[in-house]
């Protein structure tokens, strides 16, 4: 028994030794792959920077559409009555990842709103603009999803996109009383904020007392205005959202490149150390071999 124990004990240290010493080939392979990743993230940052510049340029005129559309609601102080049941949430994001917390912040806000509204007894439906929203909500809140839109984020959004989304919403048959658009508002290159803008149904606006101030408004004009406002608000939120997304992707890819170069530095040091260790070991073997003769 004592002899057998000794044999078992002998095997253990050899296993440990083989695992600790990463061979030169392993380190070279890792180094090569991390250098490739650094190149990719750097190029993604450049691409995002170009797209961000364009998106910010197009955002300036687009802001006018949004503020103009919402001006009536704000000036006339239109508020939805509390007892309204049907609610609509539109989460605006995009299809592509690697942009930091863009999609998760929208999904988190949506989930919170769904919980709040459901607890208050209201009926909620969610529209997801962008495949990521669908992916994040499908598993847990799939039955709340009314519509989703894909192919968002590949090209900069146009008013045509907003019109398509607005038309699909109006044709969907879901007669909502009140709604809100949840999007990422662009503040600066390094910061954005998840924001919420309201949309009201025709009945809410028509029933508002303050509307009598305005001249020449009949049901038809109001209905046209409502439909156009919906498209406007969607266009504005799409523009803000893409600008925030590109700036966030730029930051994320920049951080990734920095992390990759840190890893490369550390790995290069271990590579040199390992190389010197291998040379020393060979020297020792040669010398001890020569000494044995």
């Amino acid at each position: 028994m004592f002899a057998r124990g000794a044999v078992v004990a002998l095997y253990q240290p050899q296993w440990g030794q083989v695992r600790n010493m990463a061979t030169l080939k392993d380190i070279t392979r890792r180094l090569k792959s991390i250098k490739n990743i650094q190149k990719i993230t750097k190029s993604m940052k450049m691409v995002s920077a170009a797209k961000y510049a364009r998106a910010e340029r197009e955002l300036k005129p687009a802001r006018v559409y949004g503020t103009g559309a919402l001006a009536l609601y704000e000036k006339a102080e239109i508020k939805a009555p509390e007892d309204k049941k049907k609610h609509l949430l539109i989460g605006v994001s995009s299809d592509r990842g690697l942009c930091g917390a863009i999609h998760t912040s929208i999904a988190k806000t949506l989930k919170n709103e769904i919980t709040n509204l459901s607890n208050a007894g209201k009926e909620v439906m969610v529209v997801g603009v962008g495949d990521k929203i669908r992916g994040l909500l499908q598993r847990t809140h799939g039955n709340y999803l009314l519509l989703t839109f894909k192919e968002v984020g590949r090209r900069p959004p146009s008013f045509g996109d907003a019109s398509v989304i607005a038309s699909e919403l109006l044709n969907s048959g879901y007669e909502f009383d009140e709604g809100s658009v949840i999007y990422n508002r662009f503040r600066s290159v390094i910061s954005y904020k998840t924001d919420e803008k309201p949309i009201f149904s025709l009945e809410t606006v028509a029933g508002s007392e303050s509307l009598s101030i305005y001249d020449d408004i009949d049901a038809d004009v109001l209905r046209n205005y409502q439909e156009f406002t919906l498209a406007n608000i969607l266009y504005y939120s799409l523009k803000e959202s893409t600008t925030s997304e590109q700036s966030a992707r730029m930051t994320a890819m920049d951080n990734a490149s920095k992390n990759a170069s840190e890893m490369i530095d550390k790995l290069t040091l271990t590579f040199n150390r390992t190389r010197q260790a291998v040379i020393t070991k060979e020297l020792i073997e040669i010398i001890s071999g020569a000494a044995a003769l």
Partner: protein
Amino acid sequence: RSLPSLGPAAMVAYWRQAGLSYIRYSQICAQVVRAAMKPQYKAEAERAAMATVKTLKPKKE
């Protein structure tokens, strides 16, 4: 949305009566304007107005 009922002196637009929404009406008007543009401005306008979004209706189990 159902057809608007013609109340007292209701000025319902002809396109609304035909079943178009305001968004669809303005899209058609914009298409006509773009088709009437001079060639060097037309291509740019067409490119700016392209809609690439696709709808995905969730499948009901």
